[in-house]
């Protein structure tokens, strides 16, 4: 097999964040030989940055809560292109998945009765929107992601999962029958390239917020799994749907949790006006994130922004008092003091909508199986390939994700992928084989970089890409301006495929990794651009100046981006939950 070492596992998971670790745990608990490949030590994954909590109807702070109300909120939040079978599965399985985390040791905050503390978050309601604000987000202070990720890593240590820490997945290995049989990976520490062969390959590589210049995302969020899947010809779903979080710290991009508004904080403009009362009279500052982000941008565009450039607004928390802030939002105090140089106990935090979350990704069913499409538009399972977490598009978030639903998504579908793969392995599925030529995709990309003697710097190309995305595909979008952006991107492809890697060393070569990451960022950016230009309506996070209305007649569907032809198609949304009646599309107001 070429000139590289082959390692064989029952299941290999790419990514050591929440969804990857949850999938790995399920598999290693059942005794299958499971490997996790992670480009960083697992607790450095971006799940660690999640703050406010994990939304789930465990009926603690909200004693008569019902998962169906959570489902209603999620369907409405998705602007009706979330798949109702998947949302039903997530909301109904959620409580079990959350209790399991608690049993593993997750240090949730507590109520007086000893149960898990839940706080109000945006878009949450009781009684299908008719019973007012709900408090459904389970929290460990404002460090829920940190607590969750460390707990899952610890549970994997207990169950002897094999970790390849600081290994980087380069490309999938797909055989001539179209079956994914593993991947090419490189050990960052010594540069060794290996073929990791597996009956199941799970892409749990998280998001790609680094396509934008301003993002809450970690530096490592470069869409590696999405890039790998696209190079293997896997279509991507709803890539135009990017969530801009209302409260990134102005200038730094660091996240301030929605939980700060859940605890009673609110946004004000330069006149000190609580402007969300005008845009969302009922939910106010706890309307859907897309609604709040757009309202903020409108305030700024209409001249009511704050600061010398009038280009941001303020988040007021001081009225909550020092005790609440210390108990419930200690991380926010730290981040504000470090990155905004303000003390929220005394003064408001300067904030601005900031790229936060990729609702789109690799289309999957509720078992995590990656999906392609047949000629007639029906789904086709891609053999051997799975995805979960932010990299996947199940789709439970549709056009707009509700706060606290990302952590639930990653544990529920990480777990579901593990359960399904376990079943598949125990039914005795055979390892598919690959030929030398199937390994070429990854190996030739590496070779090309190692041979490079000219070309541009990765850092310069990355900046240029991020500025194009920020300017042409931001909160508000317009057709001609997007087409201009697409042209600029197309002119970059050749340059990004041939950057100059000066450092050719095999010892912990981060320059090589950054070059490979840039190529993944580019694939994600181009898919985003083409999907955004193609969807001629406004829905959820996708807001167009030239098509300002939602168009259910033509676009109550997923978009599908086909990487091989760089064209856009459609896929049906699932409106058939198994145990509850369908939630029919309605006008979405908060």
């Amino acid at each position: 097999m070429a000139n590289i070492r082959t390692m064989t596992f029952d299941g290999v998971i790419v990514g050591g964040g929440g969804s990857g670790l949850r999938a790995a745990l399920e598999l290693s608990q059942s005794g299958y030989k499971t490997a996790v490949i992670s480009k960083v030590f697992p607790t450095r994954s971006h799940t660690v940055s999640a703050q406010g909590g994990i939304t789930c109807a465990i009926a603690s702070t909200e004693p008569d809560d019902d998962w169906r109300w959570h489902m209603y909120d999620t369907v409405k939040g998705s602007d009706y292109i979330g798949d109702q079978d998947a949302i039903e599965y997530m909301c109904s399985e959620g409580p079990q998945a959350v209790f399991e985390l608690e049993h593993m040791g997750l240090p949730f905050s507590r109520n007086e009765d000893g149960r898990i503390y839940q706080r109000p978050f945006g878009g949450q309601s009781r009684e299908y929107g008719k019973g007012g604000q709900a408090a459904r987000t389970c929290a460990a202070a404002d460090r829920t992601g940190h607590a969750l990720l460390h707990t899952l890593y610890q549970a994997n240590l207990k169950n002897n999962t094999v970790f390849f820490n600081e290994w980087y997945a380069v490309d999938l290995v797909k055989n001539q029958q179209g079956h994914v049989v593993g991947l090419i990976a490189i050990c960052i520490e010594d540069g060794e390239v290996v073929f990791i062969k597996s009956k199941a390959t799970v892409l749990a590589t998280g998001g790609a917020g680094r396509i934008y210049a301003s993002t809450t995302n970690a530096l490592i969020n470069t869409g590696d799994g999405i890039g790998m899947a696209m190079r293997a010809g896997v279509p991507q779903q709803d890539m135009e749907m990017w969530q801009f979080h209302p409260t990134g710290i102005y200038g730094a991009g660091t996240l301030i949790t929605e939980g700060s508004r859940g605890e009673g904080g609110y946004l004000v403009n330069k006149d000190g006006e609580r402007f969300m009362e005008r845009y969302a009279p009922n939910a106010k500052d706890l309307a859907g994130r897309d609604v709040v982000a757009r309202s903020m941008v409108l305030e700024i565009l209409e001249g009511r922004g704050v600061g010398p450039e009038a280009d941001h607004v303020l988040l007021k928390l001081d009225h909550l008092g020092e005790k609440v802030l210390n108990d419930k939002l200690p991380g926010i105090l730290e981040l504000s003091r470090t990155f905004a140089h303000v003390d929220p106990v005394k003064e408001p935090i300067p904030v601005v909508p900031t790229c936060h979350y990729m609702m789109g990704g690799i289309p999957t069913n509720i078992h995590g199986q990656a999906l392609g499409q047949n000629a007639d538009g029906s789904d086709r399972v891609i053999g051997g390939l799975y995805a979960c977490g932010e990299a996947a598009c199940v789709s439970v978030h549709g056009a707009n994700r509700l706060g606290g639903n990302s952590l639930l998504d990653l544990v529920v579908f990480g777990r579901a992928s593990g359960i399904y793969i376990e079943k598949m392995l125990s039914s005795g599925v055979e390892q598919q084989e690959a030929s030398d030529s199937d390994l070429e995709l990854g190996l030739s990309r590496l070779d090309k970089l190692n041979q490079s003697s000219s070309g541009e710097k990765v850092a310069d190309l990355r900046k240029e890409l991020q500025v194009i995305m920020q300017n042409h595909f931001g909160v508000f979008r317009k057709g001609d301006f997007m087409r201009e952006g697409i042209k600029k991107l197309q002119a970059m492809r050749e340059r990004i495929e041939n950057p100059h890697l000066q450092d050719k060393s095999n010892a912990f070569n981060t320059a090589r990794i950054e070059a490979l990451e840039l190529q993944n960022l580019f694939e994600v950016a181009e898919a985003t651009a083409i999907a955004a230009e193609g969807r001629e309506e406004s829905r959820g996070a996708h807001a167009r100046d030239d098509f300002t209305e939602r168009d259910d007649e033509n676009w109550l569907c997923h978009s599908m981006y086909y990487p091989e032809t760089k064209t856009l198609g459609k896929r049906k949304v699932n409106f058939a939950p198994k145990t509850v009646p369908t939630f029919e599309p309605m006008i979405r107001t908060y």
Partner: protein
Amino acid sequence: MLVSVYRYNPETDLKPSMQDYQVEIPGGKDLMVLDVLALVKEQDDSVTYRRSCREGVCGSDGMNINGVNGLACITPLSEVVKNDKLVLRPLPGLPVIRDLVVDMSIFYKQYERIEPYLQNDDPVPAIERLQSPEDRAKLDGLYECILCACCSTNCPSFWWNPEKFVGPAGLLQAYRFLADSRDTHTDERLANLEDPFSVFRCRGIMNCVAVCPKGLNPTKAIGHIREMLMERGA
């Protein structure tokens, strides 16, 4: 500004050396040390360091900054730079893989040794295990550790006995599980620590407390473990 970076590439260098870079710091902004490193890497892509969240919660970029261990991403220049010079070295006491990247295997091994996961032999309830807010408050100041290793690599006892002394980070987590009302393995956990080295090599120097970027206090946690061990022995 002059930025002096510890350089070592095992493929080409017989021994480490310091390399100087002149970096133009944009006016009016108090950059973080990590931002400065990114500017250095733009000049020379071979300069090697770890980073991820860039907001002080992932623990990737622990390093020695003008002589003091800290996280590059939340250390502003104004806090550490005097005389317009920034000196960056790897965390002390661990083998260097390359430049500012150290081999953390022994650090992780000590973390794993304390069995850093909840152990409870009681039957699993249908909902969560209950815990009072007071019991939960006992975990504050413990569970927030980000495993950056700033503390353990600042500890002379850990420098001397990294194989035998668990070190401040590992012991902080040991106490996190000892203090958890839901954990039933207190006795086994203490037995696992009851030797002259694991805990008792701590001399209360408090170097760990001085550098913890999360403001945690491993020395205090070690004190609690000592008390529990004494009581158990008595």
